[in-house]
């Protein structure tokens, strides 16, 4: 695989190094002269000096071959957005991964149709929510491409679902239960699985169905 990594900060350098170790071909692009010099001692000719939002820089890095994947991980979201858009739409790169620095900009990546995004801040926030839940419904995983999400809910005492079998639940369209964990043991949720107050339930659902699920599993 031939990968172009735009942005030679900590993330970019570590990604490039790991891909190289796995035997892939990599070109790393860094625009700051001093940082480029540091990287050169390790990456030699595999690191290029230049602004990866400039077409000639991308072309010199080999994007027109085309690259199999472009990884836009600079510290500026506007740059990652433009690199991603150029890679996909001008050069026909089949896979583009972009880093979201400010989670508020996630909607801009969605707007410009860059679906594979990574946000460290968002991941930390997700972990905090999981470890220190502020809400009774925790988002565990967002499957953007599939437009689905996996959530965790603790069945509330007195909720409509308590004492019912999964097949008896009026689950919203576009929502399914995956598993039920009780006293540390999880089992796959099948039609005959009975729910009890305090059960930790994993569910997969379309975004926007959370409220219906909440009404069923949480509320009195």
């Amino acid at each position, binding site marked *: 695989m031939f990968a172009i990594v735009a942005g030679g900060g900590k993330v970019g350098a570590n990604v490039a190094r790991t891909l190289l170790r796995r035997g892939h071909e990599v070109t790393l692009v860094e625009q700051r002269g001093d940082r480029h010099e540091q990287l050169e001692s390790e990456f030699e000719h595999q690191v290029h000096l230049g602004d990866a939002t*400039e077409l000639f820089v991308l072309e010199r890095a080999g994007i027109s071959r085309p690259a199999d994947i472009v990884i836009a991980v600079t510290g500026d979201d*506007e740059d990652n957005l433009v690199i991603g858009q150029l890679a996909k739409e001008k050069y026909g790169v089949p896979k583009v991964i972009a880093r979201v620095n400010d989670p508020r900009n996630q909607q801009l990546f969605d707007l*410009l149709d860059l679906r594979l995004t990574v946000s460290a801040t968002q991941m930390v926030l997700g972990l905090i929510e999981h470890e220190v839940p502020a809400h009774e419904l925790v988002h565990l995983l967002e499957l953007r491409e599939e437009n689905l999400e996996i959530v965790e809910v603790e069945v509330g005492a007195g909720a409509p679902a308590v004492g019912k079998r999964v097949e008896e639940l009026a689950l919203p369209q576009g929502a399914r239960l995956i598993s039920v964990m009780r006293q540390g043991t999880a089992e796959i949720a099948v039609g005959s699985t009975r729910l009890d107050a305090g059960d930790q339930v994993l569910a997969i659902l379309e975004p926007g169905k959370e409220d219906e699920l909440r009404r069923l599993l949480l509320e009195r």
Partner: protein
Amino acid sequence: MRALVVGCGRVGSTVALTLAEEGWDVTAVDESEGALARLGERWRGGFVNGHGMDVDVLREAGIEQADAVVVATDGDNTNIVVAQIAQRLFGVDCVVVRLLDPARADFYADRGLDVVCPTRTAYETLAERVRASRSKA
């Protein structure tokens, strides 16, 4: 008619003043509070201090009612993103964007942005002046 000018530097502020003079209801947006000074003491239009890529800032500046958006911050990539927000997210009909890099200007013009590239104007004009002086000689 309402216009939004994102980026209130030399270019943006002059566009804002010109449009206001012609009767447009203009709001300028700039990251730096100091940019307001460029509009002069007699400025009666709006000014919002914030980043053009921040959708809330654009809303506060009235982008939902805007008939035209001019994007002229000092960053090409910011301009590219802001112009596409105006066009795709808010459906503004007239979005004009300044890009300094001719290569990106071409690509985004092909994709339907109304791009003004002063760099191209400069080199074309400079070359043209040289040609004109030679033909006079």
